[in-house]
């Protein structure tokens, strides 16, 4: 009786989770499906599969690439994302190591400052930040990497700190005896151990930086269009939107981040759980 009711519960649970998963995947599938349809049919039959009449082949893609300057936008997005993620992983791991290993009021204050920065919404600081960025000549792709470092460091330092606490200090002492100074100890011993957390931090930051629209729009505007900004330009005047090209470009925009996520996803759980339990 109990076994049977457990089985029924399992089935219900699976059904609910499958429905939830479908809900999450549906928008992506709809975008993918519509990217191959003629633009007129996208608005009239958005949920139908492409048929012989509605199928547009790769026309939406070629049109989108031509209209948006997608290749250059892709390049800038890639540069900003890779640059920001690299800088976040490098500096935040070093900061977290310092905060965790050097016990003082200053490091304790630093830690809480980073944690606090996680709860400050972007909208609260966006105008002052834009002004400051302009004043400091950070309104370019290199400058925005520095701004992303600021916005990404809260969560990243928090995650790195959690993991570093679980690394026995003796490993670092062994490295000191083996002939390492602090820099060599970090890069040869500590950083390789941080790999799961570093990958998790990289994925989480890459996803939001790649998809971010507001910050690059406010800081660098249309001088160096990133992918989300370039796609937005498909919205013409008087509300006209080239839906076909937009769907096609959205598909192209999603691909890199999905591939990155899938190739590193096994580290996410490892990285998030790391530091939670002392091993």
């Amino acid at each position: 009786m109990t076994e049977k009711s457990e089985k029924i519960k399992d089935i219900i649970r699976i059904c609910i989770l499958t429905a939830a998963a479908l809900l999450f995947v549906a928008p992506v599938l709809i975008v993918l499906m519509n990217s191959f349809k003629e633009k007129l049919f996208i608005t009239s039959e958005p949920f139908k599969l492409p048929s012989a009449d509605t199928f547009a082949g790769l026309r939406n893609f070629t049109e989108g690439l031509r209209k948006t300057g997608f290749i250059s936008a892709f390049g800038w997005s890639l540069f900003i994302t890779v640059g920001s993620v690299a800088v976040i992983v490098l500096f935040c791991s070093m900061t977290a190591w310092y905060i965790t290993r050097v016990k003082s009021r200053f490091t304790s204050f630093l830690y809480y400052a980073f944690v606090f920065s996680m709860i400050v919404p972007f909208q609260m600081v966006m105008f002052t930040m834009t002004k400051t960025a302009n004043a400091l000549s950070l309104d370019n792709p290199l400058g925005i990497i520095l701004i992303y470092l600021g916005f990404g460091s809260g969560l990243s330092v928090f995650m790195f700190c959690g993991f570093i606490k679980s690394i026995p200090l003796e490993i670092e002492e062994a490295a000191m005896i083996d002939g390492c100074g602090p820099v060599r100890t970090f890069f040869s011993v500590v950083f390789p151990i941080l790999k799961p957390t570093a990958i998790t931090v990289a994925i989480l930051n890459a996803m939001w930086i790649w998809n971010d629209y507001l910050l690059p729009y406010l800081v660098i505007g249309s001088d160096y269009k990133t992918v989300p900004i370039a796609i937005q330009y498909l919205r013409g005047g008087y509300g006209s939107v080239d839906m076909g090209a937009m769907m096609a470009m959205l598909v192209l925009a999603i691909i890199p981040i999905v591939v990155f996520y899938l190739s590193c996803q096994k580290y996410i759980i490892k990285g998030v759980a790391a530091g939670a339990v002392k091993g």
Partner: protein
Amino acid sequence: MASITLKNINKIYPGGFRAVNNVNLEIKDKEFVVLVGPSGCGKSTTLRMIAGLEDVTQGELYIGDKMVNFTPPKDRDIAMVFQSYALYPDKTVYKNMAFGLERHKVPKDEIKRRVDEAAKILGIEHLLDRKPKALSGGQRQRVALGRAIVRDPKVFLLDEPLSNLDAKLRTAMRTEIAKLHKRLDTTFVYVTHDQTEAMTMGDRIVVMKDGVVQQADTPHELYINPCNMFVAGFIGSPQMNFVDAVMKRKEGSYYLETQNGTVKLPDSRVNENVSAYEGKKIKIGVRPEDVSDEPGKENVLTGTVEVSEQLGSEVYLYISSPDGRITARVSPDTTAKTGSIIKYTFNMNKIHLFDPQTQEAVR
């Protein structure tokens, strides 16, 4: 190869806690010295100061002829084995062992030769490609030792390296480390809280308590001539029995009057220091093997056997008496059983006497 000299070494942490108090110690070249004591006695702190992992607050520390108070660990030519092994988890066994040599810019073929040689000594040649997580506790221990061996250091420092192993493996590794010391013929400083480990491995044992060296001597000397009650109680298992007594003199002989009866002190044990306690309180210390359950006619005491522990080759009797609990290590042929009243006696030629106030030995 090098000697180690600690001159008036103190370690005081911020906040004023004195972990090591005025330690003076001379460790000879190629000597195997064991620092032993209960938790918090300062033995690990002393070792870490020798390693350079803790600053010396006051005093002078020499490795060989060189004062190393301000020398970083990497320049002290030492190797250390940690309690948790501290292997680099992302590196293979080979890389773990080679890492220190790479840092010291040793040529690659020389590194390979040394790692292979150390692996052969420790029997871990087949594990060189594995990562630490794929090793058992004993194997990790060997790798940690291997990492120290390949460095060919002047001094080996070992911080409770066997405490994470099970009893059987610990005994085996004890012998291995002792053999390794003979083979490498270099200075070893070993920290443990296990007095059996200390007794079986060290050329010399340094007993510490509350940051102070209580006695530094050979295992045999520590056992037969402990300088105070702490050392007497710490060294030896089961631990020494302590009995309160008052020394009396009757007809030219000295007697020790306890709550449980009176025992005669052999004339050979009496000297100026001992006779000074006439009419005063004194502590008797008796090793369990010096308590006999087959007494003669003299010095007989009585008690009740609380517990009798059969160990096969010997029996431990825990005797309840007016003097408190007395532990006796007796022959397995004993007739004493739990609950029985027995007569016992002390081997008076082997008893130890201590001052109850200072706890120092009276000899």
